[in-house]
């Protein structure tokens, strides 16, 4: 197991139910001295090593990608890239709370975005749950060091929200030691530069939609893979289209068993929406900057500032609610519980919080909001553009609302 914080399991009926009714640990929202010492160690290391905020070129450029990879290597060298992983894979073997503390310090330092996020936050927990020991030993260390960066090959031109409708397929190789992939994937974030891809392919065209899928780990420079970069709304090549033409993948790169791809993918999706992709520190830090921006604008342009006071406060509260909810969920996981359909509620909340924070910031900036001159305020606009994608990726918020309605409220399927 990579780390308890990265495991996503079954639906739990009542999130309030204690895992064990005899449990008598009183509620306590303070970290221990040892955890505070860990925080201090992380803070000290980050302040000595992290590049200044926004110092690296954008990770959606070839140059920026490599700069971000180098930063991953620096972190890995001192075992800060994946703190919650076991030491054998390059981590520190710390728990979920320490991971959250590390994230707080990471965002506080405004350290670079994680170019390895698809691997370390999404694939790794799935690998830990479904991978063989050989697969873990093969893939986790280079993922942790940034040597191998992963992208996610799920969406297709005709299968977005309806993921089970994918058509890319895999047939058994004549050599009988692997599979041959054919088809097209799209919107793969960081796909333009990544070394590896975790993708879903149809291995049994006869089976019912969800049944015939298999989860493959594919090397991007395999013969037959073509990558076409796609510029995103900001003009940078943030994602790519991937074409597979008779691409051979050995059996050792099937994750979780042939025909079990949907189950495995749902574990990844749970990480994407639940605990691991978006740590609360990301929003707490942005909310803190928002309050600072408010204070600054209140002095310069009080009339405009007071119009946004309510929105600024609510955005900060939303981030705080997310932080507390994460601690609630983390406690539950530490007590042996699991994260189920709450991950969908979580995804709706974090994506809307991100939007609320950035919308409030742009409202504060007023006419300066549209400026993109690399000045101190430009990150708010970039952040807003990215926040706008939040309700789309990781399963659109409309789909998550369906999940909340059907699984949390028991409404009939449509």
């Amino acid at each position, binding site marked *: 197991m990579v780390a308890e914080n990265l495991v996503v399991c079954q639906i739990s009926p009542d999130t*309030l*139910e*204690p895992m*064990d*009714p*005899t*449990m*008598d*640990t*009183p*509620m*306590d*929202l*303070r*970290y*221990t001295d040892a*955890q505070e010492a860990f925080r201090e160690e992380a803070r000290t290391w980050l302040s000595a090593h992290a590049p200044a905020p926004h110092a690296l070129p954008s990770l959606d450029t070839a140059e920026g990608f490599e700069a971000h990879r180098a930063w991953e290597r620096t972190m890995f060298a001192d075992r800060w890239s994946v703190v919650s992983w076991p030491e054998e894979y390059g981590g520190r073997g710390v728990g979920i*709370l320490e991971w959250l503390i590390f994230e707080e310090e990471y965002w506080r330092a405004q350290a670079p975005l994680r170019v390895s996020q698809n691997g370390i936050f999404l694939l790794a927990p799935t690998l830990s749950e479904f991978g063989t020991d050989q697969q873990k030993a093969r893939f986790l260390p280079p993922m942790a060091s940034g040597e191998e960066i992963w992208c996610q090959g799920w969406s297709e031109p005709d299968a977005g929200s309806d993921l089970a409708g994918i058509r890319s397929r895999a047939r058994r190789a004549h050599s009988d030691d692997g599979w041959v992939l054919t088809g097209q994937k799209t919107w793969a974030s960081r796909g333009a530069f990544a070394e590896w891809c975790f993708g879903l392919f149809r291995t049994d065209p006869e089976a019912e939609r969800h049944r015939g899928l298999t989860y493959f780990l594919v090397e991007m420079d395999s013969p037959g893979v073509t990558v076409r970069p796609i510029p995103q709304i900001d003009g940078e090549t943030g994602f790519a289209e991937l074409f597979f033409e008779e691409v051979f993948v050995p059996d050792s790169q099937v994750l979780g068993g042939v025909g079990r791809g949907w189950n495995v993918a749902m574990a990844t999706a749970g990480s994407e929406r639940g605990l691991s992709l978006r740590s609360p520190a990301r929003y707490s830090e942005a909310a803190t900057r928002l*309050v600072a921006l*408010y*204070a600054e604008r*209140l002095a310069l342009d009080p009339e405009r500032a007071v119009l946004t*006071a*309510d929105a*600024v*406060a*609510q955005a*900060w*509260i*939303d981030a*705080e*609610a*997310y932080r*507390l*909810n994460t*601690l*609630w969920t*983390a*406690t*539950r996981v530490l*007590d042996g519980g699991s994260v189920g359909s*709450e991950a969908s*509620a979580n995804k*709706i*909340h974090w994506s809307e919080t991100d939007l609320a924070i950035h919308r409030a910031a742009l409202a504060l900036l007023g006419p300066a909001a549209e400026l993109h001159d690399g000045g101190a305020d430009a990150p708010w606009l970039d952040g807003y553009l990215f926040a706008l994608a939040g309700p789309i990726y990781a399963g659109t918020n*409309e789909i*998550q*609302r*369906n999940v*909340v*309605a*059907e699984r*949390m*409220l*028991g*409404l*009939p*399927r*449509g």
Partner: protein
Amino acid sequence: MHFAFTGQQIEFRDTVRRVLARECTTDDLRAAFAAPTARTARWATLAELGVVGLSVPEAHGGLGLGLLDLVLLLEEAGRVALPEPLMATSALAAPLLGDLEGAGPAGATRVRSWLEEIAAGSITAAVGPPPGCPAPIAGAVGADLLVLTTPGPEDGPEVHVLEAGAAEVTPITSLDPTRRLGAVTWEPTADTRLASGSRAASTILATSDRAAVATAAELLGVTDRMVVMAADYAKERKQFGRPIGAFQAVKHLLAGAKVKLEFARPLVYGAAWALDQGAPDASRSASAAKACASDAAVEAARVSLQVHGAIGYTWESDLHLFLKRAWALSEAWGSAAEHRRRVLGSLLAPA
């Protein structure tokens, strides 16, 4: 760091939930709408269970517990729109009296006997707003004890406690008659004064913060109830040959309300803990909790009415019993906007 209730706290909640499901049905609520009273057989049951005296010191017959132990029970009170004044009596008056025991000329013996009577279920209390925030007082009509504040003379605000009869209470008609709102006319005297100056100021602040969190906890319960009622209705009611809950527009309304509720929850529990601990940012936590709980309740009220259609707009439907409580509590002890302003003020204040 352990953000969870204990097994015991959950068990107590379950007991109270079971009892209230039996003793506070919607028929009971209708009866209370018709003839609102402060002390009832249900109140006696709650006192016997230890709920009413939960925060009364053990020496005076209570359980000596904190707000964190009470929030889950207040949530249950909200779930059934409990007509009796549990919040004012148990979450506000009892801890205030406990804090001020021995203070002021009102005398330790009187305070002690009030505390004992609260724990025994023989009196109820109503608590007035902080000075400078005039508002009708919930539960004033029929209350045995009135906890009131004045801006006081030069040396700051004062807290007074009056027994029924010592003040004139004029009933005020409101949407939810079980709130028993009243306007109170009274004369502060040296005899009624329990605290003044900085002692009174800190008591008033603590009481307002507790009121915000306790009201937020009740709102969680009433919000959950409205969402569940609407979801249940959406599973039964058929139109176009299927349950309306199969229509996505209906699903999305309810899902939105559910998400708001679930993210208000940790704020409320966290604020209860912070207040009990006297954490430095406890007041801000209390305001954040009330802001979100108020918004979640108003949204759930709107959504659950919409999902019910015209039947929800009738007196016959039980829904309005909960909508009215939600609307009233969303504005009580500070609206969402007022609490947001307080949150921002605290964030901007130099550390």
